[in-house]
């Protein structure tokens, strides 16, 4: 059998030839392992697990589950080859924001929310794919999380979409490109509550929410906000890590406050109204 295999590979069945063959096989394995290790690092960095200190984000007592708002779609921005903002010590937004989202998920789950992450690894879903995760749910809110490369270190800001005119609607369907329009007032309310919690926790953060035409929010048919943390330009990575529990807790508190005011909005159509 070994002899036939040797013939197949074009080597004589001597011990030396087999040693060479074995050496080549080992080399091929080593080569494959090295390439498999190198390519993902080049493509978008590795996902470092959240530090242990950050794994107990929710510290306030959980509340009873309400009907209406139950699902939170958390969107750690960027990922894959898109690393987002890059700072000192090799900090990349796409890795850091995943830690923030993971801690926020735990804090929200402790409050009885069901949490969906738009990405859990180093992949990069499209804007529309991320929105679709929220648009496919009923009774969901959407939070996209970012870390800026500018801004006062240790602060956090909440953004909502500016006023978008609603499309004339005769079908009761929401146009994908303007999906956020019917939810703007709810988004503002949710944003204000989260921003208040963040400004209590992080001195120097604005007291009021900001408006900006954030692309990710436009196609989301749910109350949606963007949370931006400053910044990747910290002197040491630990400065950002220290913010993780506070951001997670502030978002969870804000959503607990917002939950009673959550009502699925209706879309006006000729001859009646339709719920999205």
């Amino acid at each position, binding site marked *: 059998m070994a002899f036939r295999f040797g013939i197949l590979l074009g080597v004589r069945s001597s011990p*030396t030839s087999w040693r060479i063959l074995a050496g*080549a096989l080992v080399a091929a394995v080593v080569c494959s392992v090295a390439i498999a290790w190198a390519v993902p690092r*080049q493509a978008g960095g590795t996902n470092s697990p959240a530090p242990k200190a950050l794994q107990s984000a929710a510290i306030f007592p959980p509340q009873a589950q309400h009907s209406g708002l139950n699902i939170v779609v958390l969107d750690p921005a960027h990922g894959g080859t898109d690393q987002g903002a890059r700072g000192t010590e090799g900090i990349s937004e796409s890795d850091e924001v995943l830690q923030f989202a993971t801690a926020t998920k735990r804090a929200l789950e402790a409050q009885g929310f069901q949490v969906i992450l738009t990405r859990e690894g180093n992949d990069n879903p499209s804007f529309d794919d991320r929105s679709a995760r929220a648009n496919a749910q009923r009774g969901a809110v959407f939070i996209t999380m970012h870390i800026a490369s*500018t*801004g006062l270190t240790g602060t956090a800001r909440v953004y909502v979409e500016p006023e978008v005119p609603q499309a004339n609607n005769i079908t009761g369907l929401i146009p994908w490109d303007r999906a956020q*329009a019917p939810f703007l007032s709810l988004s503002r309310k949710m944003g204000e509550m989260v921003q208040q919690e963040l400004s209590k926790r992080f001195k120097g953060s604005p007291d009021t929410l900001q408006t900006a035409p954030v692309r990710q929010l436009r196609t989301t048919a749910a109350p949606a906000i963007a949370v931006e943390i400053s910044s990747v330009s910290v002197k040491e990575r630990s400065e950002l890590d220290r913010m993780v529990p506070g951001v997670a807790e502030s978002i969870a508190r804000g959503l607990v406050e917002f939950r009673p005011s959550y009502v699925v909005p209706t879309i006006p159509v000729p001859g009646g109204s339709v719920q999205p």
Partner: protein
Amino acid sequence: MNPKWTVWLGGVLLAAVIAAALYFPALRRQVNKAKDLTEKTAEQARRELLPVAPVSTGDPMVKVKMFWGSRRQEGELLPVDVELPLSRDPVLRAKQVLNTLLAGPVDAESRTLPPDAALLAFYILHDGTGIADFSDEIRTSIPSGIQSEQLAVESITRTLEANVPQVLRLKILIHGQEADTLAGHVDLTQLFRVNATDAAGTQLDNPSPPGSKLPAPIRKAVETVRKATKR
């Protein structure tokens, strides 16, 4: 061949394969770097060929308001008065103020746009829509983030609002193409409002909402810019 030599040869080959595997990441990095460098050089060469907005010595000196970042108030813009020879022609005037905005303030910390970005073209349509076409660096060199991208767009629209009243709304293109976002955050599919009222003082409607199809004349103009950039 002597069996001893065969073993040696195998060993050398094995060592070469391992060395190549270890060298692979560094090689990949070098290739990527070289690619970036080539792209940048091509962009710079193209920009050098483009005519700079002409500054005629006959243009009157005018006090213009430029909107750069405020150092005191994080995330805010501050109007700065600058005296410039400014053309009466609105297109030239828009190019002149936008090039001054790109050149940046004395204090580099107050910049809102990357220093290596360039204005490739500027047009004004009959309905008052301005079309500004910037080089790729506006996307690749801008500090990433919602705040910084929002400041960049606002500094452009507010500077045009203060100095070129003929521009009522603005469409931003990057390298002759429509872009989804500036650098991953701020939505560029929309027309940005520049002036709320036209020359006759009439209140203007909202410009086209983000994501909606652009009006036909603007689509046509965007197509023209795209073709011109390709050439």
